[in-house]
């Protein structure tokens, strides 16, 4: 498990909006779960702020996050002191609801289909999604780093539309309509902190600073956007000069850290000078976010109360907009700190986000895929592309996969996981790819394997040299002795020895060649192993008696299917195995030979109760020239294995020292 230690610029504890804190925690937990990492947050003083650990306690998250959010909405309702029946708003998860008042003064929250309102930015989710799926934020709606003048203009006009509507309510005071407008603003905010959505666009549709002055007969307002050094202002209403002047003051004082009450007084005074009437205003300022609502000629307590709610909402929205920007930076840093490449795609396979590791790999391969482009552009190979589309489309997961991909001589080996971003209705929102580049590791392993093969080849060559040198030495000595021509050696005996040793040399080389290409000339044909074994037993019975071996044979009465092979070669293999067993039990013992069928193969098993083979020798048993027997060639099992392999067969050896050895061969049944 990886542990990330992270020092956020913004302390999550300081966020006044508990919905948001909760949502952020949920996001961290899901991140921790998806990536199987622990995320530990420290504040600048080194205190642990939060610790998120896998395995994902999904059930726990759902309960705590949703419960807290619902408690908050009930708190809001209880503050209203009025009958809110019929009010339409959204619940903590961002879904539309209406309120029904109950006899005891409480309310019932009823879900209802969403109707597109002035803000229309929240998509319609199915009702059952309320169970709150823990999913990553909607990466696709991340704001671009710099707002263009066009975007700012669009947002200004959008906000102007909303406040023009608000103005109507003030001109013809109508409390339910006003509350409904407040509700929409609330919806905007809740959609940001609701469980299902991180709707960043909604936040940025809000003003970054707002000054609003509402007069009895009319309305004037100014919105000020400020984002990464760019400022745009929009003024409208009946008192353009007054509002423009106030906006300038607002801007100027806004540069100061804490204009406080001085600012509120200034605005009141100016408005009173121009409008010749008292101005009652509500100022909200926190951490650079400011909202001022001035009410000229207050027309009743309910209007002031409504304005109070409105200012609350606007203030929360402003806070969120700056806090959200901070959080985005934070989780980008978390992603950036992760060594594995992470790519998030939407349900059409378009890249929504790539962390630094993913970008680095692409850059190394000379690719620069852009956000919003198909993931195919990353050239991670067809397997990963298919998996991402599969996960995003049908919600399937792929875990601990490996794929190799070679494009124009640049091999790429990746170890990867693909997870769908699932919602509660089972629909996939997109997919997350987490991968690691293991190209170098794989290449190193291949290199090591090559060296191992060479080492084995070297050992075999050395063994072969040794085997050949024995008869060679004898033959050479025989010739030298012949030259010496001394009694008591007989010329005939020497020549015979010479002939014998040369034959032996030839036989060693022939056997050695047989290992690489056994049964060159033999044709495979259906063989009944029962018959082969019975023929073999005639010979083995004699050997068993001579060596005081108790020979037990288990052949089933029914006919077993024929295998494909060569009867003579199989006999040779069986004889080799059986004689090895008999030889191993020099003081007598028991050899059990069983014939049986398992699935599509017929097996012959030879079990002895001899001394057994030490574990360190087991692996080397089938290697050419490996022997522990005096005078053994070390070729018997090597040839047997090669013969069986050429027929599609297998040889399996199990042994325990002091208990005995079991050698089992199996051959595939011949196709009918």
């Amino acid at each position, binding site marked *: 498990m990886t542990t990330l230690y992270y020092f956020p610029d913004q302390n999550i504890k300081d966020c006044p909006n508990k919905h948001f804190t909760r949502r952020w925690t949920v996001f961290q937990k899901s991140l921790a779960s998806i990536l199987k990492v622990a995320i530990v947050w420290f504040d600048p003083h080194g205190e642990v702020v939060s610790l998120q650990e896998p395995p994902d306690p999904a059930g726990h998250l759902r309960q705590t996050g949703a419960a807290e959010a619902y408690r908050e909405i009930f708190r809001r309702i209880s503050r209203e002191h009025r009958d809110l029946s019929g009010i339409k708003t959204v619940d903590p998860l961002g879904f539309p609801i209406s309120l029904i008042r109950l006899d005891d003064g409480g309310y019932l929250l009823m879900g209802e289909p969403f109707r597109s309102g002035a803000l229309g930015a929240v998509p319609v989710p199915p009702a059952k999604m309320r169970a709150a799926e823990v999913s990553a934020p909607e990466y696709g709606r991340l704001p671009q780093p710099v707002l263009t003048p066009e975007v700012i203009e669009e947002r200004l006009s959008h906000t102007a539309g909303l406040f023009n509507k608000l103005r109507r309510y003030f001109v013809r005071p109508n409390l339910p309509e006003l509350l409904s407008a407040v509700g929409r603003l609330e919806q905007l905010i809740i959609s940001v902190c609701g469980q299902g959505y991180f709707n960043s666009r909604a936040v940025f549709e809000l003003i970054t600073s707002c000054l609003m002055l509402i007069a009895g007969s009319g309305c004037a307002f100014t919105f000020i956007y400020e984002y990464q050094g760019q400022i745009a202002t929009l003024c409208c209403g009946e008192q353009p000069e007054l509002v423009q002047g106030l906006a300038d003051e607002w801007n100027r004082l806004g540069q100061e850290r804490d204009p406080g009450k001085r600012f509120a007084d200034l605005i009141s005074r100016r408005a009173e000078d121009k409008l010749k009437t008292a101005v009652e205003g509500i100022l909200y300022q926190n951490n650079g976010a400011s909202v001022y609502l001035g009410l000229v000629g207050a027309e009743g307590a309910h209007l002031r109360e409504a304005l109070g709610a409105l200012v609350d909402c606007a203030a929360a929205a402003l806070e969120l907009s700056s806090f959200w920007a901070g959080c985005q930076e934070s989780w980008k840093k978390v992603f950036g700190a992760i060594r594995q490449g992470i790519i998030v795609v939407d349900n059409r396979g378009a890249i929504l986000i790539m962390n630094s590791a993913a970008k680095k790999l692409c850059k190394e391969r000379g690719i620069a895929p852009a956000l919003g482009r198909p993931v195919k552009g990353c050239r991670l190979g067809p397997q990963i592309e298919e998996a991402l589309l599969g996960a995003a489309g049908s919600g399937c997961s792929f875990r601990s996969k490996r794929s190799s991909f070679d494009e124009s001589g640049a091999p790429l080996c990746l170890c990867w996981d693909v997870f769908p971003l699932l919602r509660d209705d089972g629909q996939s929102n997109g997919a997350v790819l987490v991968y690691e580049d293991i190209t170098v590791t794989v290449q190193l392993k291949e290199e090591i394997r090559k060296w191992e093969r060479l080492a084995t080849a070297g050992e075999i060559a050395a063994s072969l040299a*040794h*085997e050949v*040198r024995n008869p060679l030495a004898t033959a*050479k*000595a025989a010739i030298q*002795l012949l030259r010496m021509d*001394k009694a008591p050696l007989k010329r005939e005996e020497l020549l015979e020895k010479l002939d014998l040793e040369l034959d032996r040399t030839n036989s060693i080389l022939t056997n050695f060649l047989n290992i690489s290409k056994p049964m060159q000339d033999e044709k495979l044909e259906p063989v009944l192993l029962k018959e082969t074994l019975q023929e073999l037993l005639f010979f083995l019975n004699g050997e068993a008696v001579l060596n005081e071996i108790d020979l037990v044979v288990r052949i089933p009465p029914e006919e077993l299917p024929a295998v494909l092979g060569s009867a003579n070669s199989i006999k040779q293999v069986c004889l080799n195995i059986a004689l090895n067993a008999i030889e191993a039990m020099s003081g007598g013992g028991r050899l059990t030979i069983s014939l049986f069928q398992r699935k599509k193969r017929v097996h012959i098993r030879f079990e002895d109760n001899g001394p057994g083979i030490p574990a360190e020798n087991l692996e080397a048993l089938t290697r050419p020239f490996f022997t*522990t027997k*005096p*005078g053994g060639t070390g070729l018997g099992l090597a040839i047997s294995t090669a013969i069986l392999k050429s027929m599609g067969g297998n040889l399996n050896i199990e042994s325990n020292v002091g208990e005995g050895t079991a050698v089992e061969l199996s051959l595939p049944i011949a196709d009918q």
Partner: protein
Amino acid sequence: MKQIDVVVIDDNEGICWVFRQALALCKLNCLTLSDGTQGLEQVIRHRPGLVIIDIKLGAMNGFEVARRIRQNNIDAKILFVTGYSEAIAAEEWGGDKNILGVLEKPFNVEEFLEMVAEIFDRPLC
């Protein structure tokens, strides 16, 4: 009991035959064995002047046999035989004057006989 001059431990019958024939030319009594354990028993029993040991034996290798011979305080001269081009570790055997070295197969019978004649101080017949 007949005096045994040389014990040969080699698992190859052909090589044993060569040593038997060659040593017979020097009128040396020789015993050939194919297994390290049996070979060691015979060396302890007969205390020969020379032991010829194949390095690559079955269960007990040639070096191990030589080590056991020394452990049994038998100061016979030892000659290793090998089919590989093996060297003997100087740190273990370098100080032992009775280790004659390694005879590589195939070897020259006459040279071998000259060495044997020197060891036993008897002329070739």
